């Protein structure tokens, strides 16, 4: 690569990056946490799931309610996916509680408007239950935390985050 083409590449690289950024769809990440007073022996936390995001959420989760103040939080699932503008998107940090998401557009303050249903899968698919229906506007970096059902010695928590 000669100097001229290198110079051109340097000039157009930011433009290309900006174009790619505006064209890329919004990305959501869903996390599943298990909050328990126990030592977590009834689940096995996988070390590979200890990412920086999960560690960041632990102080937030402990402030959700008085019930959560003395709990330990085990990250059990995580799923990151782009949100389609035309079709339903499924966010599945766990197979048992998938989130069915409809993208209803961008807001003027840069938020992402979503309509979602939180499902609980049953052993028979015909008996799947809708636990929650939500219209929300998500802004990057500020999560929605859903305190879900109790399970074993603790409670399941879902976190939805716009990247």
């Amino acid at each position, binding site marked *: 690569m000669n100097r001229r083409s290198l110079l051109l590449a340097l000039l157009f690289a930011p433009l290309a990056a900006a174009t790619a950024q505006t064209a890329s769809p919004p990305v959501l990440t869903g996390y*599943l946490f298990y909050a328990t007073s126990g030592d977590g*022996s*009834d*689940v*096995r936390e*996988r070390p*590979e*799931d200890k990412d920086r995001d999960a560690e960041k959420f632990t102080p*937030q*989760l402990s*402030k*959700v*309610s008085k019930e959560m103040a003395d709990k330990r939080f085990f990250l*059990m*699932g*995580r*799923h*990151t*996916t*782009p949100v389609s503008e035309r079709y339903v998107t499924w966010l*599945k*940090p*766990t*197979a*048992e509680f998938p989130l069915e998401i*409809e993208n*209803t*557009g961008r*807001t*003027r*303050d840069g*938020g992402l408007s979503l*309509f979602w*249903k939180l499902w*609980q899968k049953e052993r028979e698919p015909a008996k799947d*239950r*809708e*636990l*929650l*229906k*939500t*219209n*929300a*506007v*998500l*802004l990057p970096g*500020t*999560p*929605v*935390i*859903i*305190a*879900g*059902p*109790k*399970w*074993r010695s603790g409670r*399941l928590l879902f*976190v939805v985050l*716009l990247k």
Partner: protein
Amino acid sequence: MNTPLPPEEDDAVSRRLGDLLRAHVPRDIEPPFPDFFNSQVLKKIRDEESAAAAVPAPLRWFGWLRSPLMAGACAAGFTALALISFHQSAEAGTRVVTNYSPEPNVTATTSYNRAAGATVIMLDGLDAFPDDRLVTAWNAASEPALQVAGIR
């Protein structure tokens, strides 16, 4: 109309709208496809707001802009607007517009938890998920691959 409402006012408006709908729509009529109806109503509101924002100002306003004092006034105005806008965006954040559970005994309450820096939805009255059920977790980007969150 074009300024985003703070979450508390937004909730109050939503509640008033709900009360109005309950007062005027007969309870024995089940709306067809209610989820789609709700999302389309919200989409329509946003479209109308965007269209209103895009309407150009009347020409007579340009007369004010010719005044020499307008430059200073505009600068001060823009600064104030920028500060207000920054303050509102910092306060507004992620917000839940409407929220409910179709389950008969379940209540879904939403609040912004300042300490947690997050919007929190509490589902109360849910049946506990059976202890003998496994929770199979996904860990993937875009295309999920099933992994089992090893339950002992």
